[in-house]
């Protein structure tokens, strides 16, 4: 017997005993976090977060990515300096926002880790890391943040579990695995927490899973409801699938949903259909590449809008829509706005009962697949020559990573602008094949791997002999539906989630030069930038402790940003390539130098 095999046996032999001991474990020892005046998180606080706190993924239920704090301004932002920093100890994609409640920061990282930190000093209060199954494969080794409720902290993991921890102790309260990781299910999203429910969704579309959203009881972890994002028998949309294709239909849920407490509706974006080849699953394939409005109490789908039907381009529409009331033609529209991976900026109208209606959509990057949109429904008509399929090659723009991937947009009520982290001038070319028989936990996309790895193309007409724009931050006015400004990044994609503040600033990283920037939200002018340890794909947040405003973000390149960089490097001349972009996570916290005295 090999040494490895012996080691495996020992692990399997002792692990259940360890679990049993852990369940019967001694009370948690008092730690520094116990001395913190921890303020329980309530529905009321989540619905009306205090300016000094950042209580969830996008700061509020409406997914604005907005902090009302205005101490850091266009005038003093040039004096921004690190207040403290902290290595996370792991590599891969660091995408979670530092989430802050009354001076206690919670940060998740890849490899199922969460740390509680004194948000002012950087002192670690506790750390928890779940032991992941040794044989787990991680297509997306990342995590997008905690959910807070009461005195608990909730985290999803890449073995498809939710862990509830004591906010002041880091001790496990309960753990619930919502699907078998061996079958290809996993989770990366931050939980949406409301009305005593922890709402999460699964990924795994590339493994041929059937996606779903589920609500767990915040106290016990017991399942309250489960709603599939791929319509099956009994669902009104079941006829949008043929045969058994719904069983492997994908529809992953990657990102925390938005929530309207008044209507009691949660809005989740959904991923593409699986396999990638559209002719393997004829039909519209509801509810893939859509937004679904779910009744929070029952999980029932009360409304939906499919951004594009029978996806062929891996354009999952994972970001939850940003909920904004906008003025159009003298009328107030409760809008749901989404910058799509399909390259269109969608404005939908919400209703209190759930149904969503189409208002407007227009391309924010070059898009050559949609030949038209139905003016009433927004349903696109496709250019047939741009649809890859089984034994059918096609080139299309934008490429696989779309006009905007998972990094979230932001909305600033003071500037009145909606901001998009976009990517342009890149296209893809693919030819599919028969996906064959699905094997649990193995890739099931119907596209040969070499095709995927070499799929990236430049848009026709782009002159690669000189630097050209790929990534950008765009500002749009929801009232007029027109673009206000755009700031381009040369030779680099933009994987930077956005934060905007009460002083009209935008903070974002996302470029392959490892820079983290502040921009003027009204003009797009870069006001300040600094180069960090690694590329910044973390969601920035802002908070205040003892009268000082901080801006916090995780640096730590990886996952799709790294994949796309490989593709871009293959397209541009060697002297302009970013051949070394180190991994490794660090939490960075900035403040304005000398502001403490001014604040007091």
């Amino acid at each position: 017997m090999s040494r490895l095999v012996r080691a495996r046996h020992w692990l399997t032999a002792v692990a259940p005993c360890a679990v049993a001991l852990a369940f019967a474990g001694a009370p948690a020892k008092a730690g520094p976090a116990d001395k913190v005046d921890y303020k329980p998180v309530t529905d009321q606080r989540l619905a009306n977060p205090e300016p000094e706190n950042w209580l969830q993924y996008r700061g509020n239920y409406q997914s604005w990515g907005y902090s009302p704090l205005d101490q850091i301004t266009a005038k003093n932002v040039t004096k921004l300096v690190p207040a403290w920093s902290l290595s996370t100890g792991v590599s891969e994609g660091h995408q979670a926002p530092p989430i802050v409640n009354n001076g206690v920061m919670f940060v998740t990282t890849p490899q199922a880790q969460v740390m509680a930190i004194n948000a002012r000093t950087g002192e670690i209060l506790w750390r928890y890391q779940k032991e992941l199954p040794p044989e787990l494969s991680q297509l997306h080794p990342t995590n997008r943040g905690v959910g807070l409720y009461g005195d608990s902290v909730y985290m999803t993991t890449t073995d498809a579990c939710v862990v509830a921890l004591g906010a002041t102790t880091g001790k496990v309260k309960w753990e619930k695995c919502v699907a078998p990781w061996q079958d290809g299910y996993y989770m990366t999203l931050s939980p949406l927490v409301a009305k005593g429910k922890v709402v999460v969704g699964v990924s795994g579309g590339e493994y041929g899973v059937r996606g779903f959203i589920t609500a767990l009881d915040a106290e016990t972890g017991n399942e309250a409801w489960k709603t599939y994002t791929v319509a099956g028998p009994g669902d009104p949309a079941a006829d949008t699938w043929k045969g058994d294709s719904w069983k492997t239909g994908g529809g992953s849920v990657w990102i925390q949903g938005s929530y309207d407490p008044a209507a009691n509706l949660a809005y989740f974006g959904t991923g593409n259909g699986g396999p990638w080849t559209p002719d393997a699953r004829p039909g519209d394939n509801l509810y893939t590449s859509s937004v679904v409005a779910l009744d929070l109490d029952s999980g029932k789908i009360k409304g939906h809008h499919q951004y594009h039907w029978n996806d062929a381009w891996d354009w999952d529409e994972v970001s939850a829509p940003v909920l904004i009331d906008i003025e159009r033609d003298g009328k107030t529209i409760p809008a749901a706005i989404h910058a799509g991976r399909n390259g269109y900026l969608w404005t939908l109208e919400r209703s209190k009962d759930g149904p969503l209606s189409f208002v407007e959509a227009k391309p924010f990057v070059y898009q050559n697949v949609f030949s038209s949109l139905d003016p009433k429904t927004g349903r696109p008509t496709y250019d047939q020559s741009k649809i890859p399929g089984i034994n059918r090659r096609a080139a299309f723009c934008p490429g696989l990573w779309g006009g905007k991937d998972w990094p979230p947009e932001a909305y600033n009520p003071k500037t009145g602008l909606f901001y998009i982290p976009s990517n342009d001038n890149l296209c893809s070319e693919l030819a599919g094949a028969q996906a064959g028989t699905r094997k649990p936990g193995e890739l099931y996309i119907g596209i040969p791997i070499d095709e995927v790895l070499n799929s990236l193309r430049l848009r026709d007409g782009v002159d690669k002999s000189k630097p050209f724009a790929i990534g950008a931050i765009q500002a749009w006015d929801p009232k007029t539906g027109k673009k206000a400004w755009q700031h381009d990044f040369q030779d680099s994609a933009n994987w930077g989630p956005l934060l905007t503040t009460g002083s009209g600033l935008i903070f974002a990283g996302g470029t392959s030069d490892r820079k983290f920037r502040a921009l003027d939200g009204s003009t797009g002018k870069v006001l300040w930038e600094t180069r960090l340890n690694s590329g910044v794909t973390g969601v920035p947040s802002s908070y205040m402790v003892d009268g000082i405003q901080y801006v916090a973000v995780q640096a730590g390149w990886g996952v799709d940003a790294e994949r796309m960089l490989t593709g871009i490097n293959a397209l541009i001349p060697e002297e302009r390539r970013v051949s070394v972009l180190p991994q490794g996570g660090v939490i960075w916290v900035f403040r304005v130098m000398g502001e403490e005295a001014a604040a007091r």
Partner: protein
Amino acid sequence: MAREGQRAVGLDRRSVVLGAAACCAAGGAAFAGPEELLPQKGDRLVLGDGAKAGEPITLDGLPVGGDLVEAVAVDPQGVRREGSRFAKIILVRVAPDQVAEDQRAHAVEGVVALSAICTHQGCTVSGWSHETKRLSCFCHHSEFLPAEGGRVAKGPARKRLPVLPLAKGEGGTLMVAGSFVGKPGPGPA
């Protein structure tokens, strides 16, 4: 001072059952079945995928320049070693003189066997380019050189893909000649 909370969770059912039997009932060492073991010397290789899945792999069926082949190790009693993802095997064939000298003892007429599990994040390696002589992983685009002992050609992986030593069996079949050279699965370089 920080406290750390960590415990063993997320175990698959097989591990829990095996472990529970060992620690709580038997009170002694746990013994997994042969299907749980990694490939062993004396195992034969059969096709793991396709219309001929389960049939013995022969040199005649592996042309130079051909596709990557998924293989399963079968013990002398006929038990397929598929209980662990880490037992997954891939085969490629190159011209014998293209196999690095220090690896030739593990290859048979240019056929090289390796762990199918990417050493970066545990995905299944399934891409193969005969032109570049590189294996590739879809998940994060790591590339490996099978003819050079599974050496990393391109990250993010930093650890070699373990080679499985091969021997030639009767009728040109392929046999396992020893354990993986290195630990399958993710890990430090």
